[in-house]
């Protein structure tokens, strides 16, 4: 133990300022030194800290300081010196500890971020698979049709070929098993190495913090690693290689560049997804432990012997390059572990080490972020070609699928955050609708008005991340609460239904209008009269510019607002009263579906006949019904907290789920038909994956007024916005 003398001195002055004689020079203290004190401190060990009280009490003894004599004898300690040293050390540890805790929190945040990214990637993958399957199915149908047209017989050969595909897929599954031994070996060695480290650390009574920080990270990543391995194995197996290739093909993928940013340039095969980078990071860490602690190089050497042309078709030179880079970096990794061990002797090192660690993370993020926005669709063949995707036998359609995914990519990767708060209504906002192209929306409220908002015209709100938007225009004509909204496909007009039974057609003013311009009565271009009670639902069929309305008077009406006689048709179901919601069926646009109090009824829009009627417990209390834009599905939101999916062709229930903690009030499907948004009186909006019906995100968005909370939700038809309308008189837009 080395203790700087001047530190002793300063400490002494502080401690003794009350009792000790004034000391102006080091020399003046020399006579204070007592042999007794010396002997006492000669035997002091670490546990002396416990005696702190007593010794501080004995002021005389504490006066002991370093004397000339003491310097000559070998271990020279003084009580305050030791105390100070201990205090110093202790505060240093505390400092380090808090530092580590900080780092740990940071890592946890990063982990959460990465896991989120991973989820996004998985969702993307699922979408791609689903789309490919859809296209495959369509292709099959087309082929069958073509075949039938050409040869007049049913298709049987093609059927056989798809059968083969399926057997391929099942054999692929076998590849996964062979992976296990390898990963379990590395797991064991990793665990051994960790055990060793822990032993060392425990020997000197060191805290577990450092181990925990690292092991948490590694373990959480390793969980992913194992999954990913088994998925990866499908690729070589599909290519007809034996499973022994696996280790080899996986190897060049270690992008050591993540750990040493300077090599980023020369490594051609950069990971293109966050998830992959995570695996690589973990593998590298595992490998480092593997090599350093167990001294087993066998696996690595083996790998060079096999030819890997079949998998990595391109240049073998590059392969050589990569391998050497990899080796170098494994050394770097080993060094890192060494550093970690050095911690045991040199505490100062630890902070540096942790910094180094976080640099790695930064470089990972730096490397990744620009990529993640575009890579998934460019390289999905190789990098995102995860198991299921690779199994599919799609040839010509693959590109189309990727093109389509590019549109949705934005939607599925993101997590939505509240950005705009629309505050200007005095009472519950019942409905909202987006402009088809502009960042503009209209809200309708119990305060009898509609308001027009331009999201690009914001006022900065202090101390909050969200932006306040002031309304551009207030539409006044209803003599009661406004309950429903719809907009035409050009965004030139919107329609509002009110408790007063009126449907008003509004011309939208310019999105740059002065909010305090003079009143232009002509903006109310038309009023559709016919309903005798509250108009609760509107739905616009864009191609035909037709409008559907449901009213508490029990009728459903079809309008053509531009015509001289706007009312086109009237639909009533003899068995049902009180329609609550209506929508066009998009894949068969001559049909419409109406939710009534007791049942859901599908009408033929032209004849007005009831096509089918879904009745039963499940169809009671439906608050909202929407039709899927692509699939033959209608989706209902009901008072019993459930969302249900019906196949409207067979009039059968396809799926049912309890979706919220309270009544579900509103639904919206994104323009691509991949996501469903629901709002509920439980104050939350939830985003659902249409494919597997899982909740992707939940956002608590509004407060309650009486027992009402969220009254409407919407997707922007062409921009990445979602919105919710609440009984708390607010509307919120999420990006």
């Amino acid at each position, binding site marked *: 133990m080395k203790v700087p003398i001047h530190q002793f001195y300063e400490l002494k002055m502080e401690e003794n300022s009350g009792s000790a004689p004034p000391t102006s020079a080091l020399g003046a203290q020399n006579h204070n030194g007592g042999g007794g004190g010396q002997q006492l401190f000669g035997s002091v060990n670490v546990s002396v800290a416990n005696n702190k009280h007593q010794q501080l009490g004995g002021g005389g003894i504490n006066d002991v300081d370093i004397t000339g004599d003491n310097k000559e004898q070998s271990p020279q300690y003084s009580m305050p010196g030791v105390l100070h040293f201990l205090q110093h050390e202790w505060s240093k540890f505390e400092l380090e500890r808090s530092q580590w805790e900080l780092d740990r929190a940071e890592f946890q945040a990063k982990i959460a971020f990465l896991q989120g990214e991973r989820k996004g990637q998985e969702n993307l993958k699922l979408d791609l698979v689903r789309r490919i399957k859809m296209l495959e199915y369509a292709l099959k149908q087309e082929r069958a049709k073509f075949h039938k047209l050409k040869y007049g017989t049913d298709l049987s050969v093609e059927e056989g070929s798809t059968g083969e595909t399926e057997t391929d897929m099942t054999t692929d599954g076998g590849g996964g098993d062979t992976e296990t031994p390898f990963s379990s070996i590395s797991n064991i060695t990793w665990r051994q190495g960790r055990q060793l480290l822990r032993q060392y650390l425990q020997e000197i009574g060191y805290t577990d913090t450092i181990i925990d920080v690292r092991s948490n990270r590694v373990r959480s990543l390793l969980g992913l690693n194992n999954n990913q391995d088994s998925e990866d194995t499908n690729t070589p197996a599909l290519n007809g290689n034996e499973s022994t290739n696996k280790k080899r093909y996986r190897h060049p993928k270690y992008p050591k560049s993540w750990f040493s940013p300077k090599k980023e340039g020369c490594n051609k095969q950069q990971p293109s997804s966050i998830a992959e980078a995570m695996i690589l990071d973990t593998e590298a860490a595992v490998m480092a432990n593997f090599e350093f602690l167990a001294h087993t190089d066998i696996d690595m050497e083996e790998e060079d012997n096999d030819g890997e042309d079949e998998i990595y078709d391109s240049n073998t030179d590059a392969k050589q390059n990569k391998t050497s880079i990899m080796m170098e970096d494994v050394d770097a990794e080993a060094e890192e572990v060494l550093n970690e061990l050095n911690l045991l002797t040199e505490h100062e090192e630890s902070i540096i080490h942790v910094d180094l660690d976080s640099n790695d993370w930064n470089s990972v993020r730096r490397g990744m972020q620009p990529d993640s926005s575009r890579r998934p669709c460019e390289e999905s063949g190789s990098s995102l070609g995860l198991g299921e995707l690779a199994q599919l036998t799609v040839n010509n359609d693959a590109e189309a699928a990727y093109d389509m995914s590019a549109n949705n990519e934005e939607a599925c990767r993101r997590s939505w955050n509240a950005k705009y708060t629309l*505050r200007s209504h005095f009472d519950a906002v019942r409905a909202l609708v987006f402009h088809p192209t502009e960042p503009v929306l209209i809200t309708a409220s119990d305060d009898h008005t509609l308001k027009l908002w331009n999201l690009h015209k914001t006022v900065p709100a202090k101390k909050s991340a969200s932006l306040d938007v002031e309304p551009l225009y207030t539409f006044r004509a209803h003599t*009661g609460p406004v309950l429903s909204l719809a907009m035409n496909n050009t965004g030139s007009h919107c329609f509002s239904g009110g408790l007063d039974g009126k449907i008003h057609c509004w011309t939208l003013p310019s999105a740059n209008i002065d909010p305090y311009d003079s009143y232009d009565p002509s903006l109310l271009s038309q009023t559709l009269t016919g309903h005798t009670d*509250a108009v609760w639902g509107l739905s616009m069929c864009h191609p035909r510019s037709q409008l559907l309305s*449901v009213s508490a008077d029990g009728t459903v009406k079809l309008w053509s607002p531009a015509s001289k006689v706007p009312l086109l048709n009237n639909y009533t179901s003899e068995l049902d009263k009180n329609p609550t919601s209506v929508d066009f069926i998009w894949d068969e646009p001559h049909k419409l579906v109406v939710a009534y109090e007791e049942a859901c009824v599908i009408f033929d829009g032209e004849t007005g006949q009831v096509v089918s009627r879904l009745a039963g417990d499940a169809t009671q*209390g439906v608050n909202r019904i929407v039709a899927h834009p692509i699939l033959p599905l209608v989706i209902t939101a009901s008072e019993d907290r459930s969302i249900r999916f019906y196949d409207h062709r067979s009039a059968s229930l396809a799926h049912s789920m309890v979706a919220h903690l309270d009544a579900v009030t509103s639904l919206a499907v994104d323009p691509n038909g991949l996501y469903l948004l629901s709002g509920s009186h439980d104050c939350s909006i939830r985003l659902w994956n249409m494919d597997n019906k899982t909740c992707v995100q939940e956002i608590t968005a509004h407060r309650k007024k*009486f027992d*009402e909370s969220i009254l409407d939700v919407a997707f922007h038809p062409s921009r990445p916005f979602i919105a919710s309308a609440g009984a708390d008189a607010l509307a919120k837009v999420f990006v």
Partner: protein
Amino acid sequence: MAEGCISFRRTRPGTKAKDFNRWPDEPFEEMDSTLAVQQYIQQTIRINPANIDLILSMPESQDEGVWKYEHLREFCMELNGLAVKLQIECYPENCSQMTATEQWIFLCAAHKTPKECPAIDYTRHTLDGAACLLNSNKYFPSRVSIKESSVAKLGSVCRRVYRIFSHAYYHHRNIFDEFENDTHLCRRFTVFVTKYNLMSKDNLIVPMNDITEMNEIDHQ
């Protein structure tokens, strides 16, 4: 389904206009929402819009600033109804200025420099401006507690929106009477601003005989 279930105070789609927000009353003490004051005010109005004393009697231990604020929100909201009626017959051609008695011409304060807006524009601008101010995150970030400096802003809002009543009374009497008959809004407003000293009595130019009497009683 939930219709039979009395415990929910909500209006489901499909509800007839006459049943809109028609649910069992809830005692103010049991309202735990941040919007409790608004809920309570609207509930007492729904029971009987003519019972102004009940509507304006503040529950005990209620913060007075919030109470005044929520009432003013309700007034502005209901004034939309009067504005809708005025839009039908108050044109810039016949009401080119905001006047009540011919004594004053009111300038519209919604613009950067006060402007001599036609009466209908004044009405709309004043209501729109009040909606922005009363919903402003800067002045009224919360609906459960309000800064004293923000409460001070309520008076000027009251003065401005009152001119809508007075214009309707002196220039569109049929509209005013029809609206007042349904809502008792001007009477309620007059009692409100008098009770909480938000406007000077000289400015209350729409005659409300019995209220003036009541004020005199108050003064004694």
